[in-house]
């Protein structure tokens, strides 16, 4: 399958004003339909029920923006970027300061708010983003002539650039990986790495590990798993229950949590792995929900929606991270003769998850070269052919499912020990979707891509946590935009894992 979504760019033709106006009118009409109810009316709670507050000017503004935007696009496509660049540049210059002022407090903000086209802050930001994109495109086309315009018209500007970048990244990976690794190892000692940044880093690395684990199932074995978070939950609850009920430590429970999750994976996978593609996806989604519902309702064991709290923290070879250890024992700082610093524990947690993630990565890279890894990839490519070559599809898929689940279990028990509190709330479907998105956005099967996507999808929203309400909106939009821009993922490449000659060749 090739990337044939866009028509081949052709030379700028004659510009039909009527055609452009018609298109713009259609866009305005569609916008009218989109905005009439949901943007034009807001349901408000008033005493004794609900009432609708009208915002006709928002609808009007939306329609005008759609009309002008579509008209500008038509100009661009006809190879006439100059007026568009000017108009959108001017509107940028008008909108951005207004928006900035309206975000502050005081009287000027009120004035700025009335001058802005929409009453909702988010909608204004959205409009600004659209105008900026339009201005950039038009400006580029103006500066670099019709070729850039034609590229913009092809709908995927810079797609080839990104492909080239991906191949450069692939070649540079040999050198870049040690550098990245060093950066990751030294990260806690960098000057800006305070508690908040470290917490975000731990979260990102957790998702990197989950992404690498799911990559075994989705990327290597080609099994679409929409319920991966279930195994994460099994690992987390396995550790939490063992620790709180039997008083076992983190390091003792970690392998056990992994085994439990792998067992759950094999048990759930056994009946359904002969299903294909989307059927498997929906069944795994169902299993994910089922496990969450069981956790929610099995009060006697899981404490239901209240969750399990007081989960013990991990220790450094038996040395806890506490200010004043109980009589006769030592803690981390007394043993090494250091001053007590609460951040020590965070740094330690960071290294724990980093080590776990790197082990996952190393495991994946190694197992790809083993017979079972090759069998996964063969099954992904063609199940019928691999079956005729003597690969047992069910057992092979079960190993992939079980091993992927095992890593989720490890990550889950880390999650439990880091949070100290877990509840079914943490294991909703959206988590599975996010992990899958990390795998797919990064470029299926690309280990570095997973890191990139995790930083992009988890790290950035966490840093912009102040914009709480727009966070998830932007998250969804980013997923859509990246996929439409690069359908095979950011760093997509298909590289043969086995070669007949040269580096990494098969030994006979």
């Amino acid at each position: 399958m090739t990337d044939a979504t866009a028509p081949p760019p052709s030379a700028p033709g004659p510009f039909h004003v009527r055609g452009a106006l018609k298109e713009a009118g259609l866009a305005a009409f569609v916008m009218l339909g989109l905005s009439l109810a949901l943007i034009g009316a807001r349901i408000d709670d008033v005493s004794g029920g609900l009432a609708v507050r009208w915002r006709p000017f928002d609808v009007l503004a939306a329609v005008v923006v759609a009309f002008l935007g579509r008209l500008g696009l038509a100009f661009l496509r006809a190879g006439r970027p100059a007026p568009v660049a000017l108009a959108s540049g001017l509107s940028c210059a008008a909108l951005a300061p207004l928006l900035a002022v309206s975000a502050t407090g005081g009287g000027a903000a009120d004035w700025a708010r009335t001058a802005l086209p929409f009453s909702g802050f988010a909608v204004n930001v959205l409009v600004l983003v659209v105008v900026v994109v339009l201005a950039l495109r038009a400006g580029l086309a103006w500066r670099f002539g019709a070729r850039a315009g034609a590229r913009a018209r092809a709908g995927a500007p810079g797609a080839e650039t990104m492909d080239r970048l991906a191949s450069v990244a692939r070649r540079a990976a040999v050198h870049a990986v040690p550098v990245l690794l060093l950066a990751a190892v030294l990260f806690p000692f960098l000057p800006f790495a305070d508690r908040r940044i470290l917490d975000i880093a731990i979260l990102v690395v957790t998702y990197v590990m989950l992404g690498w684990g799911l990559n075994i199932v989705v990327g290597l074995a080609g099994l679409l798993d929409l319920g991966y978070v279930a195994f994460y939950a099994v690992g987390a609850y396995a550790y939490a229950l063992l620790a709180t009920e039997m008083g076992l430590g983190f390091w003792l429970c970690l392998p056990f949590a992994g085994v439990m999750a792998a067992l759950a994976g094999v048990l759930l996978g056994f009946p359904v792995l002969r299903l294909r593609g989307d059927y498997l996806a929906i069944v795994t989604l169902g299993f994910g929900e089922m496990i969450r519902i069981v956790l929610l309702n099995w009060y006697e064991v899981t404490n239901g929606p209240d969750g399990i709290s007081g989960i013990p923290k991990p220790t450094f070879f038996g040395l806890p991270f506490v200010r004043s250890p109980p009589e006769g024992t030592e803690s981390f700082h007394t043993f090494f003769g250091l001053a007590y610093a609460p951040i020590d524990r965070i740094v330690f947690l960071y290294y724990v998850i980093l080590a776990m993630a790197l082990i996952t990565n190393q495991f994946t890279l190694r197992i790809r070269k083993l017979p079972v890894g090759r069998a996964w990839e063969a099954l992904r490519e063609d199940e019928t052919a691999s079956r005729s070559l003597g690969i047992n599809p069910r057992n092979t898929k079960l190993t992939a499912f079980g091993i992927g689940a095992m890593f989720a279990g490890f990550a889950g028990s880390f999650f439990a020990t880091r949070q100290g509190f877990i509840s079914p709330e943490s294991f909703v479907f959206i988590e599975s979707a996010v992990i899958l998105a990390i795998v797919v956005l990064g470029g299926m099967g690309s280990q570095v891509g997973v890191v990139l996507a995790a930083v992009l999808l988890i790290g950035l929203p966490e840093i912009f946590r102040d914009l709480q309400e727009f966070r998830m909106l932007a998250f969804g939009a980013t997923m859509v935009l990246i996929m439409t821009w690069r359908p095979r993922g950011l760093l997509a490449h298909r590289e043969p894992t086995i070669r007949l000659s040269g580096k990494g060749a098969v030994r006979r």
Partner: protein
Amino acid sequence: MLGTFEYFVDQAINGITLGAIYGLIAIGYTLVYGIVGMINFAHGEIFMIGAFVSIIAFLTLGFLGLTWVPLALLLVLVATMLLTAVYGWALERFAYRPLRRSPRLAALITAIGMSIFLQNYVQLLQGARNKPLQQVIGGGFEIMREGDYVVTLSYLQIFILLLTVVLMAVFTLVIGRTALGREQRACEQDRDMASLLGVNVDRTISLTFVMGAVLASVAGLVFLLNYGVIDFYIGFLAGIKAFTAAVLGGIGSVPGAMLGGLLIGLIEALWSGYFTVEYKDVAAFSILVLVLIFRPTGLLGTPDVEKV
């Protein structure tokens, strides 16, 4: 009371009403899956948008002082169908069309992204709180009585069932008898060949999304009328259940989607009636797994012939 026939009938009526909602949403999944081969994960959100447009339309009519219920219902129905259809169209045009020839996983991720986006979009615009609506259609008539236990069939339930049956009939006719339906079936079988033979594939796919959105919007309206309260999150679970229903009935088959919807609705209602409410979703998913193990293509689906 629990063991009586009357109790069973009562639960069954609830189940069929719920099943009608699932079935209406499931048709959208099945149509889109049949023609584009993707799980339109954002379809549940279209249903949610339909419910929101309905409540806004009801409140508007109430504000305008229109209180004659049949006319109000008709106006709300038309407004909801039209405005939600625009969302269905726009969803396909901007999120899915650029990805039509991309790997299927890309389309799935886009659909999940759109689902997250639309949920938060509605939450931002309309607020996160529940939106309750006063009862629009009240009353009903008694069909059975056992001591103090009265089984009633409300006018609302009759309205929902009639509406569903009429819509099913109309859409079966559209797909089976009209030129549009023929083009849809042609695209379903072989998109490239259909376009060679003069079928406007883009338009057909757009109209398929519009049809799905119209049915989902009706489901949203029915949900609002039946439960009286909505929030921005209702699309997720309803969407998953409806997709389950579509798979259960055999994805790609319109009667299958309706049958699957009815079955899921009945299972849920009867399970909550006789066992525990908490595990009704587990029951629905377990039935799905069982059916798929023994009939991998669903109840009314046709098996895929696999070529090497």
